[in-house]
């Protein structure tokens, strides 16, 4: 088990589901309910993963968890990186927000909500960000067709 997994396990026993290192990138899979605890443990731990680089999502319609979230964490002290991964669930995808750990997660989570429809509980301002507020559907889902969207502003021509 890597140091990163050990740190998470120490703060929140049983949170780590698995880990693997591929192409020099360490990925730790954690339980969805423990994501905030895992993030806080790594931020405050000895390796100081203080910078949340990115939160993103990928849609796997055939998987039971469907929406796979990836949190890219960076340590400014050592330059080390780790990716936390978890599945949000196919029906009614939702997960705890990490805005309490990093305020910078605000827009990243809004983007995931806008594009995939994953709800982040405890988010202070969860609404659409890149699409208009009245947009229908979540465009980056695999079952959202390309080219099927309404033409905007057509009444102005």
């Amino acid at each position, binding site marked *: 088990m890597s140091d990163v997994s050990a740190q998470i396990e120490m703060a929140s026993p049983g949170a780590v589901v698995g880990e693997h290192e591929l192409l020099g990138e360490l990925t730790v899979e954690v339980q969805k309910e423990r994501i905030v605890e895992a993030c806080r443990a790594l931020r405050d731990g000895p390796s100081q993963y203080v910078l*949340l*680089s990115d939160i993103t999502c*990928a849609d796997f319609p055939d998987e039971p968890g469907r929406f796979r979230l990836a949190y890219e964490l960076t340590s*400014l002290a050592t330059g080390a990186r780790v990716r936390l991964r978890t599945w949000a669930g196919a029906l009614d995808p939702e997960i705890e927000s990490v805005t309490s750990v990093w305020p910078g997660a605000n827009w990243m989570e809004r983007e995931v909500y806008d594009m995939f429809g994953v709800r982040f509980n405890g988010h202070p301002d969860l609404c659409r960000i890149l699409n208009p507020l009245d947009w229908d559907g979540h465009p980056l889902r695999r079952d959202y067709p390309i080219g099927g969207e309404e033409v905007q502003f057509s009444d102005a021509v």
Partner: protein
Amino acid sequence: MSTTDPRTENFPLAAESREATLAALREERGLTPTERVIASVEAYTPQEAAERTLANEMLADTRPGVRAPLLINLGPNHPSTHGVLRLIVELDGEVVKEVTPVIGYLHTGIEKQCENKTWWQGVTLVTRMDYLAPFANIKTYTMSVEKLLGIEVPGRAQWIRVLLAELNRIASHLVWLGTSGLELGAMSVFFYCYRERDELLDLFEMVSGERMNHRYFQVGGCAQDLPPGFIERLQAFIDEMPRRIDEYEALLTGNPIWKDRMKGVGVLPADDLIALGVTGPTLRAAGVPHDLRKTNPYSGYEHFQFEVPTATEGDCYARYLVRVREMRESLRIIQQVIDGLPEGPTIADDRKVVLPPREELAWSMEALIHHFKLVSEGFKVPAGEAYAPIESPRGEMGCYVVSDGGPKPHRVHMRDPSFVNLQATAPLCRGNYLADLIAIVATLDPVMGGVDR
């Protein structure tokens, strides 16, 4: 008379916010702060606006000394907001109480389109995101794909990539300096900066055939070698450029108006910036020497001698100084590339990924087949995920790619520094004057093409 029920036609909100209210009702939640503030500045017809003014006047507290906060909508097409950035500002007199950035006006769905194109076609799409740093966009994309493929990029290609990335950094900082000067009233700087930037665009055109949106970096290396005469013209530019930067500094660094507008404006402690995810010159100006070229060297940056400029003040002026010094450091790196550019191929020799040389198509059947397969079907990338961050002119830019083993990406996500850095607008502006907001947004240097993607 208007009503407070959003399900009726005469609900006093334009369609977009009415839909937002309805969506919130469906999901059994209230409006979020951003939705509420957008609804508050929603556009009315002049007639509706007059009706509302009348109604508000009757409600208003007219006692002297009592004033309500003023909500102002700036943008999305405001000359000083650095592109199609919409800022909804709550003002108390001239002091900013709250700023809500509203983005998405340049959203083109590049990430979605990438999923429907082959891996090599994606190169053309991602170039168009951060339009001031096209080489950075392609670089992070190709690096991620190369990581998944496990393909080795030849030394000469790496050095050319470093060369163009640094030239791009100078070009981007020149646009930043010129437009920031323009926004703060130093108009002549704009003309000087664009003069040099045009020379840089000419150099890019020599290399790639395009002034912007180059498709020059390919998966595996660079599309072709540097053209004849390029190095000589580049050397002339490098020799001249330090004097030109001195010129900008002579105009600005000691300029009392420039200093008044910039010094002590928009300060946030480094810890707060890190918590917000801010990277790049903005973070370095607050004293954190975080530069991926030094901390996680890629493309052979460990072979070059250069400093990471930092400052401790963390204000707009410090950000200006850091960027100007970064241009000088980039010039140092470029000189080292010119002096030590290795000979050799400029693209990997892997016929399953890289197009065969053009002349080979005339006599080699295999080359023709490879060419046909690569162009029609594209190359396949082993299943997996990769994230290869680089230091773009604005901070950490990374591309997260997921492959399912096929010729098209399963997911392409760009971590654009402009998007993340822009979140710092509100904390940086609170308590400052409205005029300072212009300086703060200018020195954050968001590129809306990158923010909205």
